[in-house]
């Protein structure tokens, strides 16, 4: 089920309905801001906003799965390494025998972990609520060339396509007696029989794709038709500009000594 690889989840929430550009600008600015703002409280505020949006979008459950798999190990690692070993450590928080945990390290780790959390959550929130095709379509409506648009769209499709192909090849070779699981030497031996058909098939597929584009008239100098309109609004336009301007503003503020 290759199509299932897109993270997009059908929905009708505010976020699903928002203009793809608004979501794109929001995602990028929020990530930038999370790394620019100076203190833990500011980052917490951003994280809180993201959390509310996650709930609004109705993707909390899926996000928790991601958080547990991806973020928890990172956070634990950061908290441990920084708390025990950051060079800035000097205020003792607690001690287990000879091992001492420091407040400075905890603070630094918390900031780092929260920033990464914002990055991951914002990215997934965007992926869960925006169809990849919509973002390229929106960009093309803003003047991205159809050729570039196609490159972006097809790039987004390459992973599912390749996985699809790889799955078929693996099935075929296993059916001939090739062990693809087990010890490392076993898997190493399986490398060529799995990779070569994949490379060859991908090359052929690329050539065929180029042919498909020609016979379907891709590249004719026609006025591009809008496939569909995205609902936009004054509020969204203002939000986009505000978010986009907030990033340089925050950078300037930091340079001027915002702590």
């Amino acid at each position, binding site marked *: *089920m290759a199509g*299932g690889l897109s993270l997009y989840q059908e929905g009708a929430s505010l976020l699903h309905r928002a203009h793809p550009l608004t979501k794109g600008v929001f995602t990028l600015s929020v990530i930038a801001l999370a790394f620019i703002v100076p203190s833990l409280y500011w980052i917490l505020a951003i994280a809180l906003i993201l959390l509310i949006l996650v709930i609004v979008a109705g993707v909390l459950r899926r996000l928790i799965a991601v958080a547990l798999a991806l973020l928890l190990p990172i956070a634990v690692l950061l908290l441990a390494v920084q708390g025990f070993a950051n060079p800035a450590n000097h205020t003792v928080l607690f001690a287990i025998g000879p091992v001492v945990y420091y407040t400075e390290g905890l603070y630094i780790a918390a900031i780092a972990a929260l920033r990464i959390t914002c990055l991951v959550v914002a990215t997934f929130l965007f992926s869960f609520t925006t169809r990849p095709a919509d973002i390229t379509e929106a960009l093309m409506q803003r003047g991205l060339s159809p050729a570039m648009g196609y490159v972006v769209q097809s790039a987004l499709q390459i992973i599912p396509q390749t996985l699809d*192909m790889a799955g*078929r*090849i693996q*099935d*075929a*070779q*296993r*059916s*001939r*007696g*090739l*062990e*693809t*699981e087990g010890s490392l030497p076993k898997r190493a031996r399986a490398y*060529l*029989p799995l990779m*070569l*058909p994949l490379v*060859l*098939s991908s090359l*052929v597929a690329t050539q065929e794709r180029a042919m498909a584009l020609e016979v379907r008239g891709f590249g004719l100098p026609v006025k591009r038709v809008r496939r569909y309109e995205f609902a936009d609004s004054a509020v969204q336009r203002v939000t986009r500009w505000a978010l986009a301007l907030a990033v340089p503003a925050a950078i300037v503020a930091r340079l001027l000594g915002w702590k």
Partner: protein
Amino acid sequence: MPDISLEKVLFSYPGGVEVYPEPGLTLALESGVTALVGENGAGKTTLTKLLIGLLRPRSGDINVAGLDVSKTTVAAMAKTVGYTFQNPDDQLFERTVKAEVTFGPRVLKRPPADVERGVAAAIKACGLAGKEDVHPHDLGLSERKWVAIASALASEPSVVVLDEPTLGQDYPSRQRLRELVMRLGSEGKIVLVVTHDMDFVGEACPTTVVLSHGAVRYAGPTSNAFGDRALLKEAGIEPPHVTELAQAIGLRQCVNEAEFLATWRR
């Protein structure tokens, strides 16, 4: 004792619907050539993948030539089952036809003498004699299909599964396929042919299984398989052309040309 048996097999793809309706698929196949026919999406390819363990049933038992499939890896099943997929390009990777055909028996660690015998016989049976040193990708699609079939036969499996072997094959190639399949059947192997080509079924497969919407609707001699018009329609099947002709001129049902001619002469 049937050679392949499926007992109340239930299976569904992730997020998909049940392929075989309750209480599951039950089917027994004996040695010889069996055609597996039915509409697109009837569950034919799923069935063949279950036989070799590429797909695992949610419940039910599958036995193939004495092996409990649930307890056997795909690679181990390959010793017993030679499986040919529709698209040969999913498997071809060696530099010569001979190396490609040798790959299966080699990874299955068969004794060198057996490998040599199996490979030579497979290459001959698939009409690839003289092309042993050609790069498989320099061959046309139809011949690449034959390389894939030879690869499956080279390990001398006791079960042979062919998925749509006649697709895109011209008349001489279909004739060779017919001879090959019939010979394998007469050697006591279990040959399962998934196909939409009813002329081929009539000519080469004495037994037919009709699968429709995941249920076995007919399993028995091919000569009686095309009697029930309503079932044929449901299973997206059209009878062989000879059968149509026999019916049109009021002869009793015939499924292949030899039968037709014999009946007509009388």
